[in-house]
């Protein structure tokens, strides 16, 4: 008899089985969720394990050493760190103003009929694989930069060290431009989300003061959203730092530190992509792993900052709208 005084039904035996199944299903879900924590540990551990040789040999000097010479087994990360930071910085300088302006255009000005198509185009831009940008970069962008934009920059701004020196086409600047194109969608879409979360009350208050459209945006929208937009830029930076294929294909891949943006450069991600399978000695491979660890460290820090900024922003704004 069951607790309610009826003959035990097949259903109540099934209940016993299902309690067991419930438990297992829960454990399975928990395990899957914990995989996420396991993955981050795995990534850190495998990279650390891969580079212990180089760590032991070079120590912290690895970061400051600017020579990368596989022939004599001497490795330093400085040119790559430099290349990664400079190309990402160029990308940000181009992409942040364009992305934020586009986000403002989409939220504050564009008529409904234009808005959706533009958003769709930007989403499609985000879907283009890195290697296709690289292909396009090699055969379309680089020749154009070499023959038109760079000579023009050279002749107008050549007095600056950034825009002097010989022009090859493949260059730090080309790398920065291609990365800019690739991080535009994420900067635009995250900024758009943030600008959209600005309460309308703010805008109305500004309009009530007799402000022009631009003043409303400056006073009501930007002053309110600038923290979040900064977060969007940092998120874009995180993506830029790790961009690999397209950069590898246009940056020139030379481990040099040069003031000129027309000179070829090299990034952490590109050198790994190019030399990993060719690494002949254990120390060489280990040095590449250490570059990977450096790259991971930088992107992790940047991403954590971005997530924290975006989180606090959305936390403070969602309650109000």
């Amino acid at each position, binding site marked *: *008899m*069951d*607790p*309610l*005084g*009826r003959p035990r039904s*097949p*259903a*109540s035996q*099934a*209940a016993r*089985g*299902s*309690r067991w199944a419930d438990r297992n299903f829960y454990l399975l879900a928990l395990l899957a969720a914990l995989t996420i924590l396991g993955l981050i540990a795995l990534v850190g551990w495998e990279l650390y394990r891969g580079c212990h040789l180089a760590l032991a040999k070079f120590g912290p000097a690895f970061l400051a050493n600017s020579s990368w010479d596989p022939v004599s087994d001497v490795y330093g990360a400085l040119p790559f760190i430099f290349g990664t930071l400079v190309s990402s910085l160029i990308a940000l300088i181009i992409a942040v103003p364009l992305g934020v302006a586009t986000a403002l255009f989409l939220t504050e000005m564009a008529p409904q009929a234009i808005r959706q198509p533009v958003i769709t185009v930007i989403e499609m831009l985000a879907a283009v694989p890195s290697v296709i940008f690289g292909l396009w970069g090699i055969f379309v962008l680089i020749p154009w930069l070499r023959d038109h934009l760079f000579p023009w920059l050279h002749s107008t701004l050549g007095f600056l060290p950034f825009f002097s020196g010989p022009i090859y086409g493949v260059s730090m600047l080309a790398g920065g431009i291609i990365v800019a194109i690739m991080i535009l969608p994420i900067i635009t879409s995250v900024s758009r989300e943030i600008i959209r979360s600005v309460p309308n009350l703010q805008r109305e208050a500004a309009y009530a003061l007799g402000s022009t459209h631009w003043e409303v945006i400056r006073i009501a929208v930007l002053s309110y959203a600038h923290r979040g937009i900064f977060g969007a830029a940092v998120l874009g930076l995180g993506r830029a730092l790790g961009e690999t294929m397209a950069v590898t294909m246009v940056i020139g891949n030379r481990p040099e530190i040069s003031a000129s943006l027309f000179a070829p450069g090299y990034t952490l991600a590109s050198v790994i992509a190019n030399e990993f399978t060719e690494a002949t000695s254990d120390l060489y491979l280990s040095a590449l792993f250490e570059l990977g660890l450096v790259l991971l460290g930088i992107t992790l820090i940047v991403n954590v900052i971005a997530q924290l900024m975006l989180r606090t922003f959305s936390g403070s704004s969602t309650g109000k709208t």
Partner: protein
Amino acid sequence: MPENSTLPIESGPAPAEAIKPQSPGQTADAPAFDVSNFSLWYGTRQALHDVTIQISKNRVTAIIGPSGCGKSTFLRALNRMHEVMPGTRMQGSLKLFGEDLYRPGLDAAEVRRRVGMVFQKSNPFPTMSIRENVLVGLKLNGIRDRALLQERLEGSLRMSALWDEVKDHLNRPGVSLSGGQQQRLCIARALAVEPDVLLMDEPCSALDPLATARIEELIQQLRLRYTVVIVTHNMQQAARCSDRTAFFYLGRLIEYADTRVLFTSPANPQTEAYVSGRFG
């Protein structure tokens, strides 16, 4: 458990007896729920205070009271639905046919199969057809027998007075029905697992008067076979379709009596204020 403490479950009283309204004061009713000193907390906030009540078998019991007085909380305690929310805690005893529903080791799912529930807003599963909606409880509880399923399908749809309207398109999505039909579909879904008790939390509050009338009619039919507990904001509804009525206020059971008595000569001044609409 001692055999003598369980009551045999009848397949239903003879129709003639059940259709006849209960005469006030009749005490022969067998208790379905026996609740004593039942209290419930949401975290630190106490929502029910020492509720003691006996709910009769094969009767319709209405629960009324102002918003926030704990009606839903009490109803959900009857089939342990409140346990879904983390941080709830209860005290006291709650028995169904003599068996403690909160006995350690008794699965809440087991309790809920015996004590069905219909919600304020009809909620047929959106991905399922009418047929699947009715049978989902049986199928997911492991019943495969085709003939039995077919029998329950028709039986519960007839019982919920929906059969004639849907018998020709059982494969249409459940959500394609009208609001009132959807609510009756939810009743059919609850009935298909053959519970002993049916709990209804304001089942008509989202329906128009015509659909409400149909559900009320249906509740009268259900009494033949089930014990029904219904929460309602509508005092006419309580008066029309219940045998006994419980008035809750601030988490306490204030008065519990035969419906006619409670509405015509309430013992408690608070009850009187509430039923005469002079409340708050």
